Each structure stands twice: as C-alpha cells, then as structure tokens.
C-alpha cells in the first residue's frame, strides 16, 4: 500500500470534492444534490432543446430559445417525413432496420461460435488465434475502410447493405467475441463434463449446455450491436450512395445540405424520430446496458 498518510497536515473543515465516503459533513445530501441536479440540467438540455424545437414553427425557432414551444406545430413531423421529393423517411427507416437486424443476427450467431471454440475447445494454434483476435480489438475501423471498399466494389456490393452486414457473419466485431469468451469462461466446466459423460459431443455441448447459459451475453451483444449500428455514420456513408439505399443517419444529412432556416424544424423532428429506437432500447435494457459497460467498457 502506497499511502503515506502521516505526512498530511489535517484540513478538517475544507470540504474538497473528491474525497470519498470517509466523513459525513454538511453536504451529505443537500449541496451535492444541487450540483448533481444542476449538471443534469446542463447534460440533458441539448436533448430537451431538440425535442422542444421539433415542435416549433419556423418563425418561432428564430426568436424563442425556450425549450417549450409557444405554439405547438406537430406538422413539422409530417413535413420532415415527406422529406426529399420522391422518397420518404420511411424508406430510410426501413433500410436502417434491415442493416441493424442483419448486424444483430450476424454478431450473435458468429461471435458465439468463435467464442465457444476459444473458451471451451482445445485445438492446435488456439493461442495464436486468440492473440490475433485480441490484436484486432484495437484495430481502428478507418484503417480497413479503403481495402474493404475495393474488395466489396469488386464483388459489386457497393450501394447494397451487404458490406455492412456480411462481415458481421464472419465475427469481425472482436469485442463481442471477447465479451462472450469471458462470459463462457464463467460457466462451470462441470456442466460440460456431465454432458460429455452423457455422450454429448462438442456440438451438443454448445447447443444444449453452453449457448442457453450464455443468454445474458447474447442479449448484451444484440443490444449493443443494434445501438452501434443504428447510430453508425461512417461506414454507411461510404457504402451507400443512392437515395433509395440511404439509412436514417445519411438521410438526416441531406436535410443539413439543403437546409435554409425553414428546414430546421422538420430536420429536428426527424432527428428526434431517429433517436427513438435507440432510446426505447435503452428504456427496456437500461440495467443491462449500464452494467454492460461496467464489465466490458463497450459503448453505444
């Protein structure tokens, strides 16, 4: 323990924020909560502002910065939804849903297979492959985007959701492989061994013993895959070029390109809508998401 506490002159009555539980002083409750609440207002203001503004009329946006609109204009949503001539935001939502669903299924299926091999089976070169898997954890996505684009271009996959989905079926999201390996290692081996004695091979043990017990990690993977994909901008921007293939984030950007002051309210309306699925996931899986980043450090 490196804690030379004796050197310290005692400063009893200076309440410095930063010292933990030790003493119980004047702000046990009161002042700290005021700070926390104040910070919360600042933290949530941009979101509240976005929602409020999405209901304001174009004139009001210029001269009313209150969160609450003076007159309620839900028409912004209809106007935003109609979006760009010839295409509605519904198309963008559908495209985003297809990509996200594909990524979720791919990640859950492929990462659990690889994780079972790493966590439970013994085979030659396992250590080498595992080290390579860890190595790809820190590999920035931007380094691979050019050669992958060339590859998918030669396959004729540009302007389709395939470059966004197919790699996930090859367990390229190493983070989720790692997450599942860690989880599977926590499942008692005696369960496998019992199944083995009962005549279960590796495949039976995976499907009937380990996979059912891995459910919490599978759900975590599915939820984070969804949120990441739904919010992702970079790769969707690179691979999708035609309007009818656009996903929600790319579609939103169109507003920004074409926007005068009049387009702000509809643009905000669609911004709000674009975040609704992520927010619903958060409401339903709140505990799991917040605890999930505890154990793994992944973020939405």
């Amino acid at each position: 323990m490196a804690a030379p506490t004796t050197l310290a002159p005692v400063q009893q009555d200076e309440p410095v924020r930063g010292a933990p539980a030790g003493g119980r002083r004047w702000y046990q409750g009161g002042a700290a909560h005021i700070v926390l609440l104040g910070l919360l207002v600042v933290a949530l203001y941009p979101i509240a502002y976005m929602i409020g503004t999405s209901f304001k009329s174009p004139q009001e946006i210029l001269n009313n910065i209150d969160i609450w609109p003076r007159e309620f204009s839900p028409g912004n949503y209809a106007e935003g939804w109609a979006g760009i001539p010839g295409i509605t935001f519904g198309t963008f939502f559908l495209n985003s849903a297809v990509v996200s669903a594909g990524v979720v299924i791919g990640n859950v299926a492929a990462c659990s297979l690889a994780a079972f091999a790493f966590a439970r089976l013994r085979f030659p070169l396992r250590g080498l492959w595992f080290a390579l898997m860890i190595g790809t954890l820190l590999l920035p996505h931007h380094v691979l985007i050019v050669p992958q684009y060339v590859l998918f271009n030669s396959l004729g996959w540009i302007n389709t959701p395939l470059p966004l989905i197919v790699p996930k079926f090859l367990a390229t999201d190493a983070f989720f492989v790692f997450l599942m390996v860690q989880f599977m290692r926590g499942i008692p081996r005696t369960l496998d061994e019992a199944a083995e004695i009962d005549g279960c091979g590796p495949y039976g043990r995976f499907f009937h013993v380990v996979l059912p017990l891995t459910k919490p990690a599978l759900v975590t993977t599915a939820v984070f895959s969804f949120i990441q994909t739904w919010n992702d901008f970079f790769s969707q921007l690179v691979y999708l070029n035609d309007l009818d293939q656009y996903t929600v984030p790319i579609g939103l950007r169109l507003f920004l390109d074409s926007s005068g002051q009049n387009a702000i309210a509809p643009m905000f309306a669609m911004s709000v809508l674009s975040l609704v699925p992520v927010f619903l996931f958060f409401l339903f899986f709140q505990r799991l998401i917040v605890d999930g980043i505890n154990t793994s450090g992944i973020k939405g």
Partner: protein
Amino acid sequence: MAVVTEAPVRAPRRGGRQADRAKEAVAGYVFLSPWLLGLFGVTLLPMLYSLYLSFTDYDLLQDPEWVGVENYVRMFTDDPKFWSSVGATLLFAVVSVPLKLAVALGVALLLYRNRRGVGMYRSLYYVPSLLGGSVAIAIVWQTLFSGQGAVNEVLGFFGIQGWSWITNPSTALGTLVLLAAWQFGAPMVIFLAGLKQIPAEMFEAASLDGAGRVQQFVHVTLPLLSPVLFFNLVLETIAGFQGFTAAFVISGGTGGPADSTLLYTLYLYMRGFGDFQMGYASAMAWVFLVALGVVTALVFRSGSLWVHYADEGDR
C-alpha cells in the same frame, strides 16, 4: 486455479482419448471457421492489400500504378492539409480526453458519496453517451452553437456577446471538444463501479491516521482507482483519435473553417472517397495505424509508472 480446471482428463472412456482429442480439434476449427474466414478475408489480407496500395496511384477505374514511396513523401513534405489534420486531431484528443475523464471522475465521486438516487442519476447521465455519437445530436450541436443559437442567447442573458462558434476557426474545434466531454456518462459508470470496489476500511484507516479529504483522495482513492482510470484512459484515447461523425456533420464534410475541424479520419475519408485517391488514403491509413500504435504503447508504458494494482504485494 487455472491448472485445476484445465488439466484433468476430459475423456472418461479408456482408449478413446486420442480419438476424442482429434474430434475436439476438428470441432474447434469448425466453430472457428467463420471467424477465421473473417480474419483473413476481411481483415489481414485487406490490410496487406492496403499496404501495397499505399505505394501506388489508384482511382478504382484504372489498375493501381506503382509509385514507390511517393505518397508518403508527398504527405510529409508537400501537403499542408495533412499537417493541419494531424494538429487538429492531436489538439482534439489531448484536450477532450482529460476533460471528459475529469468530469466523469468528479461526478462519479459526488454520486458515490450520495447514494440516494444513484441509480436514476447514473441512467440519466448516461443518456448523452448513448445518443452523442449520432448525426442527430451533431445537427443539434451545430444549431446550438451557431450565431443565433441558444448558447449565444444564454450568454447574452449574462451580458456576454457571443459569435458563431462553429464558423470561427479558433472555436470550432472547441465545440467538438465540448460535444465529446458532454458524453462523460460512460466512463463515469465505469468509475462508479471502481469506487464501489474500494473497501471502506481503507478510508477509515486513513481517517484514523489523520488524513483529511485531500489526503484521502490523493493517497487512497487515486491509487486504488488507478487501474480503472487506466482502463478508461486507454478506451477514451483510442476513441479520441477516431472522432469522425460530429466533425463531418458540423463542418458540412469540409473540416472547415480553415481546416480547424479537419480530423485525421475526416481527411482520410475526403482523400479516399471524395477524390478517390485510394493509394494516398491507404498511405494515410498506415501512418494512422502506426501512430495510434505508438500512442497506445506510450499510454501502456506510462501505466507501469502510475497504475497501482492491489495484489502486487502478494506476488
């Protein structure tokens, strides 16, 4: 421990042991096959291919043309925008990462002390982390910090004359830093979990020895929290060098004004997918990979100086 769980004989049937081993090895590769295909097909071979491309001129239409180290030479000696992007990225990471971690740690300490309502605060503070990377929030940010935006209205209330923060070269990057720091919820949740692991006796002992709050923080909390701080630092540093969405949206895809928000990844994108200079973009990607490797190594190296592991004494 590991020895006990890994080592015992796995095949109960005598004589079948060798065969079981072989069967398990085959099964191992069956389970691993999608991942292996991904590792080689989508990761390793494309990486090698991009190394080759970095020594060529390639626009996707004609075959790549070998130019040697010309891309690299041009990048380092004859491309002011490259250096702008390096500067902007470094500045962004060096300011936003410590700021974000400091806010996260401060709030975590406040929350840790006041357990009432922790669950609610934790969830609500996390919301910006959840939504912050989206295009929608970047759009909101751009509006908030524009000339007639809400930020200036609030400043005006205090008698401060603001300007258009996003079109002024000296403040545009600052709005991106604020957007990053605003998403302090995720590291805060990790700090909170780390604080819960510190045994209360540690503080009692320090308190009995006459340590005040500052001393407790410096000599008890910080050392015991240092592994968690290190974990957060690694994650946020790597993320800090890869900011793209907000810079792209807020600058309208240009990295402006005056290249002040031209983050490295944004410049790479412009070269590769705006100008279709695949060779040059590949060279940039490899420089990025090496630089990020060096930064990560430095962070890990520094960790051995200040990260304190509680079980070190036992070994």
